[in-house]
C-alpha cells in the first residue's frame, strides 16, 4: 500500500475510536453472548447483545485486536445501541456491502456515519476481516437472541 492509502486507512476517526473503545467491557444483562475469531490472525471478540423488545439496549464486548477491529467494534456499538433491530439492519447491510465491495462501493455517509471511515480498509483484502469481525459477531448474536426469545 502507498502512504496516502495508509492515511486513508488510519483516519483520525479510526485511531480515535481505537483509543476510546466506546462501550467496551462485558455487561449484564444480555440475551446472547458470542465469541468470534479471525483464524488468520487470531483477533478475537466476545460480544453480548441485550435486546428489550425490538430495541438494541446494549452491545458490550471484550476484544483483542488491531486498531481496525477495535475501532470497528467501537463505531458499531455507537451506531447501533438504542436503535431498533429494524433500524439497525440497513446500517449493518450497508457496512457489509461497503466492506465486501473491494473499494468499488460508494458508501452512503447518511447511513453509515462514522463507519464510513472504514472505506479505506475495504480496499485492503487483509484488513476487511478485521473491520467485519464485530459486525459478524453482532449478527450472530442477534440470531441467537431471537432464537432464544422464540422458545
Amino acid at each position, binding site marked *: *500500500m502507498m502512504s496516502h492509502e495508509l492515511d486513508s486507512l488510519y483516519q483520525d476517526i479510526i485511531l480515535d475510536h481505537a483509543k476510546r473503545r466506546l462501550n467496551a467491557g462485558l455487561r449484564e444483562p444480555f440475551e446472547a453472548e458470542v465469541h468470534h*475469531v479471525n*483464524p*488468520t*490472525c487470531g483477533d478475537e471478540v466476545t460480544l453480548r447483545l441485550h435486546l428489550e423488545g425490538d430495541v438494541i439496549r446494549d452491545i458490550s464486548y471484550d476484544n483483542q485486536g488491531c486498531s481496525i477491529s477495535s475501532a470497528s467494534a467501537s463505531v458499531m456499538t455507537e451506531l447501533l445501541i438504542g436503535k431498533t433491530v429494524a433500524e439497525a439492519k440497513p446500517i449493518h447491510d450497508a457496512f457489509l456491502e461497503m466492506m465486501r465491495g473491494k473499494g468499488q462501493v460508494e458508501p452512503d455517509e447518511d447511513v453509515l456515519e462514522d463507519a464510513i471511515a472504514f472505506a479505506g480498509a475495504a480496499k*485492503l*483484502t*487483509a484488513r476487511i476481516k478485521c473491520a467485519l469481525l464485530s459486525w459478524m459477531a453482532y449478527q450472530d448474536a442477534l440470531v441467537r437472541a431471537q432464537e432464544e426469545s422464540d422458545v
Partner: protein
Amino acid sequence: MTTTQLVGLLPELEVIRADFPILERTVAGGLPLVYLDSANTSQKPQVVIDTMVDHLERHNANVARAMHALGAESTEAFEGGRDRVAAFLNAPSRDEVIFTKNASEALNLVANTLAWAQGPLRVGEGDVVVTTEMEHHSNIVPWQLLTERTGATLKWFGITDDGHLDLANIDELISERTKVVTLTWVSNMLGTINPVAEIARRAHEVGAIVVLDASQAAPQLPVDVVACGADVVVFTGHKVVGPTGIGVLWGRRELLEQLPPFLGGGEMIETVRMEGSTYAGIPHKFEAGTPPIVEAVGLGAAVDYLSHIGMDAIHRHEQAITAYALEGLQTVRGLTVLGPLDAAERGGAISFELDGVHPHDVAQVLDSRGVAVRAGHHCAKPAHARFGVQSSTRMSSYLYTTPAEIDALVDGLEYTRSYFKLG
C-alpha cells in the same frame, strides 16, 4: 483416409496447437511429437506456464497469513483460482471448492473423513460402500482401506461385455445399508461415459452419498456439479491443462460442514490450544498447511483457457477425433478395441489389444516413430481382469489432437505388425 471433412473438429486447431509449446518438440531423432497420452496427463498451454511464472517472479508470497502487498496479491491470485474453478464447475458456492494435491487425495479425503465422522455419515460395521469394477485404482483402494479398517463391506458394479456398467443388480447393491456410492463419470480405460445422474438418483433414494470421479470427465465434458446430482465431485489439475500438485474436491456445503477435518495443521484451524482445537469453516477446514498456491493460480488460468474455447466445442472435437480413431484402429488387422465402439457413448481414451504383440512392445515401436501412447494397466487392473487381459495399449486425444496424428498412430501400428513379423 481423408481428414479434411471431419465434422466437429475445433475450427482453429492450428492456432490452438500453437498455444502448446511442447507440440513443437521433436523426438526420436527429429520426428514430430505425436502426443496421444493426454488421459495420462495433458500438455500445458503457454498462458498457464506464463501465469505461473509471473506469479513466481512478481507476486510470490504465502496466502491468507500475510498482510503485506505481496501477500495480498498472492492471496487474491490464489483465491481467484478458486473462483475460476467454481465457475468451471458451476458450483453454487466458491467455498465448496477445496484444493487437494490431486484427485487421489480428494477421494481419500472423503473416505477418511467418513471413517471418523460422527452421526449418520460415519461408515462402520455393517455399512456398504459401492464402487465399480471400472474405476481407476484411486477410486478403489481408498474404499478398500476404509471398509477394511471400519468393518464395512465393499461391493461393486460389474462391467458388461460391451464395456458399460452392469446395472442388473443395482437394487441389491444400492440398498438401505448403502452409505456411499462412488463411480467414475468417464472410464480412463474403456472410455465409457456412465449414467451418473441416474445412479445418483437411485443412491439418494436410500440416503447414500454419491462421490463422482470426474478426473476424465472434467477435461472433456461440460461439468455441472448440480446437474450431475452428485454430493462430491473430484478432478485433477494436470489433466485439464493445469499443473501437477493440485486436485479439486467439490462438495455440497451441508455435507462438507458435517465431515470432520482430514489433515490437521496451519490454515484449517479456528483456534488452537494444547488441550484441543476448533476448526475453520469450509473450504479452509480441509486445506491444512500451505496450499498449492502457484498451482491454483495455474489451474485458474487452465480452466479459463478451456472455458474460453468452450467445453462444448472441446467435447465435439474429442468425439470427432475419437470416432475417427475408432474407425482407423479397426482397419488394423488383429486389433481389438476394449470398450464401447460408438464414439457418442465414450470419452477420448481408447484402449486396445494387438494380437501377438505385448502392449509394451507396441508402445516402444510407436515411440520410435514419435507416437506417445500408454501401455500397461492404466491403473485399472480390475477392468483389465474383467476382459481377461493383463494390460493394453491406450491412445488418448485432447483438444490439440489432429486427425493426422491419428493417421500416424494407425501407420505406426501397421509398422509394429510388420516389425514383429505378424502375417
